[in-house]
């Protein structure tokens, strides 16, 4: 079979890191080739070599059988290699068509832009993709899924024959994913080769033809997606077999109630939400994107205070208008977006652990007791097995799982006994996920009251002692632990008017 792309023993070193160790990869026209591996396995580095962002130190890249040099991203684009990054790179205040043709606007005389042609050309691409989109709409008004369509259209406008998609579904809901897959299948049928990077196993099985796995910068192997079980792919990724444990639900009948939420409401996002949480309990929150779970967490935490409703902590009503009120009541929130809302990335592990508790470790002059904090930081590094050279390491250099543990340490040090985890394993690789799960179970066993918000149903089922399900800002039901994914989905799609007991 003819080959679109062949990468042969591609090698790449950065100071102190051997990022790619003689990696092989190939792509055929009209196939979806999934590239998998834990974070840091080298997938993105390999793709950056293919898209002209990095220059490999060794090896060859062949397009249509001929060796090519890709000194710049533009050179790669000219050869028909398009990349859609995980973080979309669109200019929010420009229109869809302006974004697609940025840098190569069709010109009229005197440097005027031919907006009409620009819009018509963009419309033609969307028609070919079978997507209804107004080229004149400003990008800022589009959902993430729609913005992704614009990115795909932009890549296609370069007549791309190779399309690299880096975790394209990370921010999409199920129906949006289905729509994306329709487009991917259409492109595949037209002979475009698609490299698909994702952590979601079920998607890989649905969409891809072949799967290549990388680990620690090295090529592990390539398998046919159709006849390889997921567990085999996972064990290729982590180098060991992972067992899927069933949830063990502790007897909490005698446990005291830690948190009680009554008729919490805010605008259209949260409607009359009531639930309670016991000490030692893990309450899972399931629901589709936009169901209001993050909004609920932020309301309880005071990041965006609720308009109505009551919150009781250990039986006493509390007023929470700001995060510092919540923290004082012993509530900690671990955002789904650690980098923006959880960590000061440029600061070290010690400073991040201490971030919420600093005044406690300072004298009257405000002088910080660094030796004591160093001891505390080292203690947490050992207790949570945070993998870091020392407590002075900048957290931006840690992996996602270890960053998450730093945030957990921050709240444990602040004596928070009600912890809200929003997507605790997002962007964390498979091996570290199991560790985070164990940590959550240990925390619950130690008497912490825990809320886990997760969009991954298997995660919710595996962790939760009880499962609360939300849909369109309402709590549509609370299921016992171990409930089936079907039961959860039924509640997650229970729209208003259909009441579920």
């Amino acid at each position, binding site marked *: 079979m003819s080959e679109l792309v062949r990468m042969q023993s591609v090698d790449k070193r950065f100071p102190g890191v051997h990022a790619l160790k003689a990696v092989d990869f190939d792509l055929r026209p009209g196939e979806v080739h999934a590239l998998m591996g834990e974070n840091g396995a080298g997938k993105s580095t390999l793709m950056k070599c293919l898209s002209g962002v990095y220059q490999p130190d060794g090896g060859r890249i062949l397009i249509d059988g001929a060796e090519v040099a890709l000194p710049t991203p533009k050179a790669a684009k000219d050869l028909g290699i398009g990349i859609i990054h995980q973080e979309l790179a669109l200019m929010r205040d420009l229109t869809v068509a302006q974004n697609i043709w940025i840098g190569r606007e069709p010109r009229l005389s005197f440097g005027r832009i031919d907006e009409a042609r620009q819009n018509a050309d963009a419309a033609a691409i969307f028609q070919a993709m079978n997507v209804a989109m107004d080229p004149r709409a400003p990008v800022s008004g589009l959902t993430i899924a729609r913005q992704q369509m614009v990115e795909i259209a932009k890549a296609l406008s370069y007549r791309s024959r190779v399309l690299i998609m880096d975790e394209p579904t990370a921010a999409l809901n199920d129906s949006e994913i289905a729509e994306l897959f329709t487009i991917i299948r259409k492109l595949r049928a037209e002979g475009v080769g698609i490299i698909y990077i994702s952590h979601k196993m079920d998607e890989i099985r649905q969409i891809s033809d072949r799967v290549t796995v990388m680990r620690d910068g090295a090529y592990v192997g390539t398998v046919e997606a159709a006849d390889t079980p997921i567990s085999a792919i996972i064990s290729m990724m982590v180098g060991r077999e992972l067992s899927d444990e069933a949830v063990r639900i502790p007897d909490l009948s005698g446990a005291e109630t830690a948190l009680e939420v009554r008729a919490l409401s805010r605008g259209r996002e949260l409607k009359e939400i009531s639930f309670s949480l016991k000490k030692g309990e893990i309450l899972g929150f399931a629901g589709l994107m936009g169901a209001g779970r993050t909004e609920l967490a932020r309301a309880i935490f005071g990041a965006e205070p609720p308009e109505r409703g009551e919150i009781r902590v250990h039986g006493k009503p509390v007023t929470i208008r700001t995060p510092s009120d919540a923290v004082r009541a012993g509530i900690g929130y671990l955002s789904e977006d650690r980098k923006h809302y959880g960590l000061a990335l440029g600061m070290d592990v010690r400073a991040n652990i201490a971030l919420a508790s*600093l005044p406690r470790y300072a004298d009257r002059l405000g002088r910080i007791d660094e030796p004591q904090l160093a001891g505390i930081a080292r203690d947490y590094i050992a207790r949570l097995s945070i993998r870091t050279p020392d407590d002075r390491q*900048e957290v931006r*250099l840690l992996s996602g799982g270890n960053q998450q543990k730093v945030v957990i340490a921050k709240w444990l040090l602040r004596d928070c006994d009600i912890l809200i985890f929003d997507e605790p394993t997002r962007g964390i690789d498979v091996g570290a996920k199991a560790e985070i799960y164990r940590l959550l179970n240990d925390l619950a066993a130690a008497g912490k009251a825990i809320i886990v918000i997760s969009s991954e149903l298997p995660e919710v089922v595996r962790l939760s002692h009880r499962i609360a399900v939300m849909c369109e800002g309402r709590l549509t039901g609370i299921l016992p632990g171990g409930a089936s994914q079907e039961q959860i989905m039924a509640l997650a799609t229970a729209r208003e008017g259909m009441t579920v007991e």
Partner: protein
Amino acid sequence: MSERGKVMSIKETRRGGAQQKLWAFASLIVLVAGFSLASPNFFQVSNIMAILQATSVNGVLAVGVTLIIITGGIDLSIGTLMTFCAVMTGVVLTWAGMPLLLGVLTSIATGALCGLISGTFVAKMKIPPFIATLGMMLMLKGLSLIVTGTKPIYFNDTPGFSEIAQGSLIGRIVPAFPVPNGVLILFIVSAAVAWILGRTVLGRYTFALGSNEEAVRLSGVNTDAWKMAIYALAGGICGIAGLLIASRLNSAQPALGLGYELEAIAAVVIGGTSLAGGRGTILGTLIGALIMSVLTNGLRVMSVAPEWQTVVTGAIIVAAVYADQLRRGRAG
């Protein structure tokens, strides 16, 4: 990334920070050496003292605004605030005839209060720092002119006022080292602020705010209050600068002040503090301020026209930041 790779990268990051200061310091040494070779009048004790004295006002302002810049903010009002503080000191000392100490306290308190107001604009009213302090800059300039009726206030009736910047405590003890008090004050202020930044909760939050303000807020920290405190502290330091300049001129000149803020920000930038926030050092700012006065002084000693001195200073700012970008590019 392997564990060993991580260890190496952190070492490089740390070395990068030290390297930055080393670079700025090396530039300073090269400048001093260059001017010393170019003109025999440059490397004289009297001229070095003049350079240090000339650095004191800009240096103190720069140290203050470094705090705000590390939070990711900016303060354009420091120049006219300095003047307003000097004017208020004149009101208390010359017009009301109060004792010297009260004048000193007035200047610092005025600065802190105005800083607190700027901080309120920024933290509570969510006005972008550039706009809030631009407004403050104009308000204070106007107020200085209104209070004084546009005429300078002289401190002839306050004995000892000129000693604040001009006298030399060190010179009285070690006559061979007639370091002016203004310079001594600059170093004391620098040491104090460096200590605050490196050792205290306020300092830690200053860096944390510039690094990721939302993460700090979601850690339960009252970010608004801390930010206001930082602006107030920087304002108080402007009050000290106000005393220094008033003492050197033996008067409060209400028309003065505009332009000082940009010189101070330039010193901060040359010293390697990022305008994006989260990073910066007082030592760097001090070196930056010294580079600026060495340049001005050296070019003057070499009889370069003042117009050209300004051009060179501007070019140095661009070059310093570009050099910093190159270093970062290489490190990353």
